[in-house]
């Protein structure tokens, strides 16, 4: 009895888990007699497969009842994915795609785990213009497809849809419609993409294009920094060389005095250390100032940094 309860528990858990990994599609469609009473749902792994007909893409299929109603659960993940619902005419293979005419046989929708998507097609209405409801992502997708039909729609219109979109998938699809972006638009796209999960398979080329388009900026920034660093190094190198040239113009006694001054000694202490008159120290100091082009002791500190401690020690 206990074992039975355990098995029942496991079974219920598996059922609950598998239900959690599904979404539901229900709908109502009015088709004329030339159409089969079947429907098919394909999961499209990338935008490139939106117009690919293949049996391998079809994940579920079902029957449409005599009243035109249908309903099915289909596998769906945590993240949004792009799906295609299609119908076929009698005698056509299951993977049939009709594009462009009034007989267009498919409609796209976005779904993720636990979504309940509803499809409704009125009589005389093309399948592609049917109502898909059940999530905000699908209203955004519908708005995008309407815009894509407008030949005059420019890049800004598509990027704007992506910007306002709450669905990353609808946003990425909108961006994929834009082409030949200017720098301002690229920046805009960059800001939008920063909000998305870069691991999504959809729009991988968009993320790649964005990365590539920004790599040159990194190279330019790196190049500029390198040139600045080189200029600073060159400036310091020549300045140091010039200072050394001036430094060498000092006599040994003057170098000794500079060393003592740099070690923090006053003129009086210098005179005592070198055993010379204070007035002699003052004369040397004035000569040093004149030769080095400085006007006070503080200015000598710059020379201490540039010349280094070895000279001070030598002094």
């Amino acid at each position, binding site marked *: 009895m206990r074992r039975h309860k355990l098995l029942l528990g496991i079974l219920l858990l598996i059922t609950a888990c598998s239900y959690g990994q599904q979404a539901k599609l229900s709908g109502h469609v009015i088709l004329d007699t030339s159409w089969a009473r079947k429907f098919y749902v394909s999961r499209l792994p990338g935008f490139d*497969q939106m*117009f*690919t*007909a*293949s*049996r*391998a893409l079809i994940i579920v299929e079902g029957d449409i009842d005599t009243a035109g109603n249908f309903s099915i659960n289909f596998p769906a993940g945590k993240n949004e994915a792009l799906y295609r619902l299609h119908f076929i005419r009698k005698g*056509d*293979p*299951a*993977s*049939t*795609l*009709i*594009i*462009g*005419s009034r*007989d267009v046989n498919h409609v796209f929708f976005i779904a993720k785990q636990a979504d309940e998507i509803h499809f409704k097609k009125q009589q005389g209405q093309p399948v592609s213009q049917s109502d898909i409801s059940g999530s905000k992502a699908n209203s955004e997708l519908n708005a995008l497809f309407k815009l894509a039909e407008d*030949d005059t729609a420019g890049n800004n219109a598509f990027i704007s849809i992506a910007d306002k979109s709450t669905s990353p998938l609808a946003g990425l699809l909108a961006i994929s419609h834009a*082409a030949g972006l200017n720098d301002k638009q690229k920046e805009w796209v960059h800001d939008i993409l920063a909000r998305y999960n870069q691991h999504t398979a959809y729009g991988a080329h968009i993320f790649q294009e964005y990365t590539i388009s920004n790599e040159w900026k990194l190279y330019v920034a790196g190049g500029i920094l390198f040139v600045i660093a080189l200029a600073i190094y060159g400036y310091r190198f020549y300045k140091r060389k010039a200072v050394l040239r001036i430094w060498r113009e000092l006599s040994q006694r003057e170098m000794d005095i500079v060393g003592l001054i740099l070690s923090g000694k006053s003129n009086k202490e210098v005179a005592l250390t070198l055993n010379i008159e204070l007035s002699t120290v003052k004369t040397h100091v004035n000569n040093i100032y004149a030769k080095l082009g400085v006007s006070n002791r503080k200015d000598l500190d710059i020379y201490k940094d540039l010349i280094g401690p070895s000279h001070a020690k030598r002094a």
Partner: protein
Amino acid sequence: MKKLLFFLLSLAAFQAKAQVIKGSIDLKDSTITRSIPVEVAAGAKSIKFTVKVYLALGELSVSLTDPNGKKASGGFSLDTRTKGGGNAPSKGELSADETPKIPGTWKFNIKAKDANGTFNYKIEVVEP
């Protein structure tokens, strides 16, 4: 005589306004990459293309590219492979009407790999 002349002139005028390319290909284990050039004059109103493909086996894709090589709207791919490693036929029908913004040589591209089936196409350029 006048009527015949009028008919011939009308026919010539009509021909000057529409360029039609039609064809069909029997695919028998065919692996092909073919581009059909379509000359589009400046101010052309539209390029209409109709394609019907039944593919019993293999892969096939159809696309239209502008003179800059950019893909125009429309186009599709068919693949008969199934998840289980088998094959199931695929069918594609396309009726596209593109307003050509760029004059020059547009290309209607067909790419097939180990394809068996039938391919029918019709391209019409409506000129001003």
